[in-house]
Structure formats: structure tokens, C-alpha cells
């Protein structure tokens, strides 16, 4: 019993007042992840538009708003899209962005906000959250690699909902980085304050291979390239994010595997 009490006391500075996801200010808010788009000669990005209100049994015509941010977290495009009910609807993000003309970078983020909230969701004081499925096509490969959304990152007033920690935390990615593969590690700041983030790629004996310290503005995404590792390694991310879970792009020659940390 004393042990449990001591455990709780030790944990208190890490948890008190530090929620993973803040509640939006308005009861009528809807929430989205900040999904990563990649658009270049090598990359095409797609998003699976699921009509959430239809999934809850509401069969009216529904719409979403999609909002694009550049790699510095600044909005540069938004549009509304009619949903097609319970049919599958794949949004070609690269086509959408290419139609805008020259982009300021080849990656950024986007958010998808559903305009209709099923009544059953409001009644239970929950918020509809789009954490759906992005797929990436690398070098026009015949197969795309899928990655699910991860965070309840932002509401439709564009207020970031990610919590902040009082003390700097370590996110020890439980993934083996291999010398014969290349990687790109993408991390989004879904909180309001800017965050100092330190990426450390270390061998299992503790030898540092890569150390990079950056400042991530709110909604900003950063991509850390990892190449030519001398030995099996792992990644440690230190920041005041509650959950600094990155997306991982693993390159094996011309093949890519994409997944969440």
C-alpha cells in the first residue's frame, strides 16, 4: 500500500494537469489529427474519406472541410468536399495540391473536419475525431503504404489540442533502426506552445550517432533524415510533448514502409 502511494507521488509531477488531449472550447467542435502530406516527384499522398455521420446511421448528404498547412504550420489552402455516404472515397491529396501551383515545400500537414456531428455523439459529450487513414505512394509504386491517424491534434477553430508537459519527457521509440536502411522520422507539434525537441539516435551501447535539436512551432512538422547508421540503433525524442509519437518512413532501396511509432 505504501509502495503504491509512493508510486503515485512520484508520478504526480508527470500527470497532474497534463492531459494528452485538451477539451475543445466549444461543445460543437470537431477534431482532426494533423496528417502528414508529402507531394513531390517521388511522393503521392492519398486520404480515405470516411463519412462518419453515415457510419452512425445518419444518411443525409454530408461534407468535410480539409485544411492544408505548410511545413511551418501555416494554413495555405482549404476546401469543402461532399462525401459519398457509405461508398469508399479516396482523396488524391497530391492532385489537390498540384492544382494549386508551386508549393513552398514538399511536405506539410492537413486536417479533416466533418461538418455534421451525429446526435448520438453530442449526447454523450464526446467530440467527433478524424484519425483516419493516409496512404503514401513512393516512386509510383504499384502498392501504397497505409498509416493510421494517431493524435486528436486540432479542433475546427484550428486550436491545437495536444497537451504540454511540465517536465521534459523522453519518448523512447521501440523500433530497431538498421544500418542497411534509411529512415525519415516525422514529428508534428500538436500543442499551442512552441516546443524544443531533441532527437537522439543512439546505438544500443549508448553511443550517439545523430543529435539534432530543433524548435517546432505550433502545428509545425519536422522530418529528420537518418542515413548510413554504423550499427543497430534506436531513437530517443526529448521534449515537453506529452506524446512525441513520430511517423516513420522506412526506405529499403526503392521500397517504403510507413507506420506510426
Amino acid at each position: 500500500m505504501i509502495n503504491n502511494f509512493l508510486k503515485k507521488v512520484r508520478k504526480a509531477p508527470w500527470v497532474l494537469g497534463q492531459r494528452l488531449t485538451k477539451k475543445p472550447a466549444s461543445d460543437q467542435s470537431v477534431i482532426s489529427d494533423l496528417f502528414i502530406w508529402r507531394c513531390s516527384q517521388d511522393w503521392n499522398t492519398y486520404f480515405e474519406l470516411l463519412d462518419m455521420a453515415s457510419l452512425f446511421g445518419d444518411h443525409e448528404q454530408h461534407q468535410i472541410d480539409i485544411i492544408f498547412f505548410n511545413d511551418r504550420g501555416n494554413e495555405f489552402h482549404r476546401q469543402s468536399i461532399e462525401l459519398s455516404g457509405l461508398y469508399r472515397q479516396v482523396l488524391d491529396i497530391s492532385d489537390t495540391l498540384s492544382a494549386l501551383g508551386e508549393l513552398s515545400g514538399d511536405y506539410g500537414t492537413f486536417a479533416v473536419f466533418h461538418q455534421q456531428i451525429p446526435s448520438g455523439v453530442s449526447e454523450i459529450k464526446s467530440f467527433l475525431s478524424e484519425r483516419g487513414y493516409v496512404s503514401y505512394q513512393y516512386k509510383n509504386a504499384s502498392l501504397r503504404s497505409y498509416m493510421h491517424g494517431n493524435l486528436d491534434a486540432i479542433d475546427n477553430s484550428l486550436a491545437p489540442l495536444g497537451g504540454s508537459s511540465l517536465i521534459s519527457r523522453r519518448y523512447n521509440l521501440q523500433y530497431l533502426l538498421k544500418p542497411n536502411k534509411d529512415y525519415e522520422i516525422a514529428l508534428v507539434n500538436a500543442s499551442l506552445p512552441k516546443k524544443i525537441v531533441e532527437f537522439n539516435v543512439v546505438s544500443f551501447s549508448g553511443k550517439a550517432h545523430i543529435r539534432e535539436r530543433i524548435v517546432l512551432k505550433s502545428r509545425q512538422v519536422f522530418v529528420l533524415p537518418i542515413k548510413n547508421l554504423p550499427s543497430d540503433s534506436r531513437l530517443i525524442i526529448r521534449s515537453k510533448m506529452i506524446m512525441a509519437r513520430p511517423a516513420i518512413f522506412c526506405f529499403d532501396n526503392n521500397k517504403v514502409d510507413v507506420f506510426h511509432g
Partner: protein
Amino acid sequence: MSYYPILTAPYCSGKTILYNFSPNNWESADRCKQHINLTYIEDGLWHSKTIGKMAYNSYKEFTHNDVVGLMPDDALALLSVTKNKLPDASEVLPVLTQNHTYMPMHRATLGLESEFTTTSYQGELDPFPIQASLLTFSPFMQFGEGIENYLLLMNLEKTPKNREVEIEIYDAHSKELKKVQSIYSNQVNTISLDDAGFNRESLPVVICKGMASAPLYFSSYKQGELLSLEHTHPPASLVVHGNRFSAQKQLKDYWLSQLKK
């Protein structure tokens, strides 16, 4: 602490990478050498064997070849990392209590390796309640010559049985029943989606009234030349805050009442 299965899928062998370090630095975890256990069903009991030890801050890779001969050929191979040895035999799946973290969960890399490439996700497997059901929408099917699509339904229950139930696969829009297939508890069940008559506009919905599972969607191009693997979120993940599991119940009640054989 969770179990970590070795996956199976067409053209691939499973590869699971275990880690003996905590995914964060603030939830209590033992920093010590730990046992690596292999748990499986044989003769109506759970059996566990220690198949190695792991130093703190290390990893170990396991493929099916590493466990062939240690357990029956058709059994689900469950790996775990624990401070204490597991019972040699038990009537209930051993509960793994040590080193449990929540933000994030302690994970392993669950991968599939073909002759040409690999795909993986970061995951874990905990036992499902026997009364639970499954509802998953699948926007992951890919189309084109040489592409095959499979649903891998991964179940774990406490009772050492392979009980048989049926899954039903429908078109979400027409509610037409497309396929029925038997699946088994405590297995990775492989279900082809290509013979169900879906096209690019179809949104498949999979239900199982008698068993819950982790739904993994797996696609292969040219017999493993390219691979894609991702899981869907549980229905509760469509909302955040409030009574999320009431949202899950709403969705399951709605779809289980709509979809009838």
C-alpha cells in the same frame, strides 16, 4: 505488459522484435535482465517456455524459424518479456503484470518479411473478453494486376481453446452479404478479400458477433515484391472525450442490427 505475436500472412514469414527498455522515462518500469517467453496452446492448456533472456536496453528478433519445433505447427506463437518465469502450463493465459506503460504502451515491432521486402507496425496483443464482438470498416483494399488483399484477424483469449465462429463481410452501402468465413480464437486468421466482389468504390464492413479481434489489413504485390500492412482503429476511436465506449456501442448496435445474413 502485453503479448507480442509472430504474425503469419501469404508470401511472408512473421518477424517480431522485442525491446527491453521502457517507451518513456516517467512510468515506473524495471531496468533489469528479463526472460523471453514463448506461450502457445497445446493439449487444451497454455504452455510457456523461456527461450532466452534479454539484457536491459537491448532488443531481440524472432521469426517463425526460431520457434519451429518448440510448439505445435499451427499454434499462435506469443512472445513476452517478463521479470519472472511464466508457469510451464496453465488453464488460463498467464497475466503479465510487470513493466506496463500506458503513454505509450510498451510495444514490439510486429512485422512480415517476404523474399523481397518487409512491412511492420508497432503493436501488442492483450486478451479480448470472450463476450466481445468485432466491427471494422476497411478502406485499405488496393487494386491492380498482381495485387492481393487480405484481412488478418488476430485474436487472443484467456481460455486455451481454438473456438470457431463466423465472420460476415458486407458492402457498407448496399448491405449485401459478400462473404462468410470461419475464424478461430487464439489464431491469426487469414481471409482473402479479393473473392468477395468489391470494387474501388466499395467500403467493406466486417462484423463478428461472437468474437473480437485486432483487424490487420495486408496487401501484397506480385507475391511479396511489395507489401502493405495497417490496422483499423476500434470504433471508439471515432470520438474523443465523453463516454467513448457508448459511441462504440452505438456503432455496433446500429451495424449489427443493419447487417443480417
